[in-house]
């Protein structure tokens, strides 16, 4: 257990982008928010319009309050979602290099000189992508959201309005716990992509990207072409494209929400992310087939890790 934690710490030492990517993304949003607010104030002042119509909701009693607080909850989700784009990019390329980069620079010979099993190595890297990267992103986006709330409260205060009732009416803790709950479910969902990318990362003697990405694309095109000329192809109920996108894009956090009754048009965003609804994905065969496929690919990656050290570089 201790070894596994240390192995995951090593991944963090090597890849500080786990932290910096969400920091850059959320800071960019905060800075844009600040700039927009300032420019709105300046333009409104020049035109002589009494500022504050966007804050109107705060003036209209409880209905307006509910809308405003729902806006806060939505912002919390949006901050998390924005860092997710970063999570996707970081995880994807992290996994693709996870069992290849150290073979290319031959540092694998150093790691292999220590009493660590290939299983532990592969497990630490898979868990890093499944849990560590999204956890960092959630923590950072939560901090950014707190800064955002402070900004809004301050802004409303400048116009003699108090946003505090709306803050009190929002559900930051419930939202956070729902987002937190999405982490382990999301981790299960990512498994096929984690397995797929790590498999090719362990397999490739050069250019793992080619194998992992171009191979499926060529397969899809070939399949479509076979379909077109009426040859034998994969079609019907099981969509070939759906399987391949599951293998390639499942590390997109929340990508699985389509498989639930998730709907942003709900009246309250906090209800949308209700554990009962989110958890429904645990009953879908799609999730569990992916878990099985992912674990099989990871087992193959462990096997390859024990045998393949040379690269072509």
């Amino acid at each position, binding site marked *: 257990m201790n070894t596994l934690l240390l192995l995951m710490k090593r991944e963090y030492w090597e890849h500080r982008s786990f932290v910096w990517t969400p920091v850059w993304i959320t800071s960019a949003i905060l800075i844009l928010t600040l700039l927009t607010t300032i420019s709105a104030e300046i333009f409104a002042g020049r035109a002589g319009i009494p500022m504050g119509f966007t804050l109107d909701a705060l003036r209209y009693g409880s209905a307006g309050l509910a809308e405003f607080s729902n806006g806060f909850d939505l912002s919390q989700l949006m901050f998390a979602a924005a860092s997710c784009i970063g999570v996707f990019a970081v995880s994807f390329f992290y996994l693709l290099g996870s069992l290849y980069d150290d073979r290319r620079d031959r540092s694998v010979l*150093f790691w292999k000189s220590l*009493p660590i099993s290939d299983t532990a190595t592969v497990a630490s890297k898979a868990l890093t992508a499944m849990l560590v990267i999204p956890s960092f992103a959630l923590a950072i986006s939560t901090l950014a959201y707190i800064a955002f709330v402070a900004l809004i409260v301050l802004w409303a205060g400048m116009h003699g309005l108090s946003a505090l009732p709306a803050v009190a009416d929002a559900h930051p803790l419930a939202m956070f716990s729902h987002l937190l709950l999405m982490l382990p479910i999301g981790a299960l969902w990512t498994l096929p992509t984690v397995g797929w990318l790590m498999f090719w990362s362990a397999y490739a003697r050069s250019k793992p990207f080619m194998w992992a990405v171009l191979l499926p694309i060529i397969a899809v095109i070939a399949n479509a072409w076979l379909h077109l000329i009426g040859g034998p192809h994969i079609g019907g109920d099981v969509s070939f494209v759906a399987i391949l996108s599951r293998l390639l894009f499942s590390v997109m956090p929340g990508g699985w929400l389509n498989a639930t009754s998730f709907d942003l048009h709900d009246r309250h965003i906090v209800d949308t992310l209700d554990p009962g609804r989110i958890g429904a994905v645990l009953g879908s065969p799609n999730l569990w087939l992916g878990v099985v496929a992912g674990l099989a690919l990871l087992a193959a990656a462990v096997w390859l890790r024990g*045998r393949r050290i040379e690269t072509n570089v």
Partner: protein
Amino acid sequence: MSTPMGTIVHARNLCKNYNTTKALDAVSLDIQAGRIVGLIGPNGAGKTTALKAILGLTDFTGELSVLGLDPRTHRPRLMEQVCFIADVAVLPRWLRVREAIEFVTGVHPRFSREKCQAFLARTKIEPHMRVRELSKGMIAQLHLALVMAIDARLLVLDEPTLGLDILYRKAFYESLLTDYFDENRTIIVTTHQVEEIEHILTDLVFIRDGKIVLAATMDEVGERYAEVLVNPDRAQAARALNPLNERQIFGKSIFLFDGVERARLAELGELHKPSVADLFVATMKGTYA
């Protein structure tokens, strides 16, 4: 598998092919505890493959036991007792010195952080430095400090001083001898700079085209091989004794003999102990032809 006590490496009939080339061709070898074994061979002779087999880093056929374990199936357990340095370029460039120490402390049950820090205190290496900021020589010092702080029974060195200047090379082997080696440890080393390690070796193994062509202790080598400096008038008589090699120097000939009686050689001229390098050149004649 029955392995005699004190046998560190026990290999029988090891074979490994890369496509059509035989990297290991029926290699059988025993290495005893407390020895420093030089594994010497031309480029592509199979040295690195042999070491990789011992370290569980490659597949092969045949029977091999290292410290009583099969490296193919027990690499993690084996690595608690075996260390290796595979040339200076293998420490990850992003790693900081203190991270390296923390990591090895955590994963290696026989690593002593204090020892490692004591070794590093004698160098210019600082804990906050990254490997990419270190010179080649400093990387070798760091790797050696990490390895010497591990209480291992077998140390495998594959060209550990490649690309280092002579000061670092001398210091490297000196620390190994004075601070690390004792009768409970065994060292296997490959290098092309034979003359620099000759004096520290206790055993010599020559490998050529995947085959072991010589495996002997240095004492045996000294008894078996002799060099004779022969005047031109006796050269014909010397050639009749089937020398391994003949070279010219200052108008005289130097002949290298294998297993010829000392008394007969002494009649021909001045006797010398051949250097490992000369022995190597004579043995490997025609390798690249």
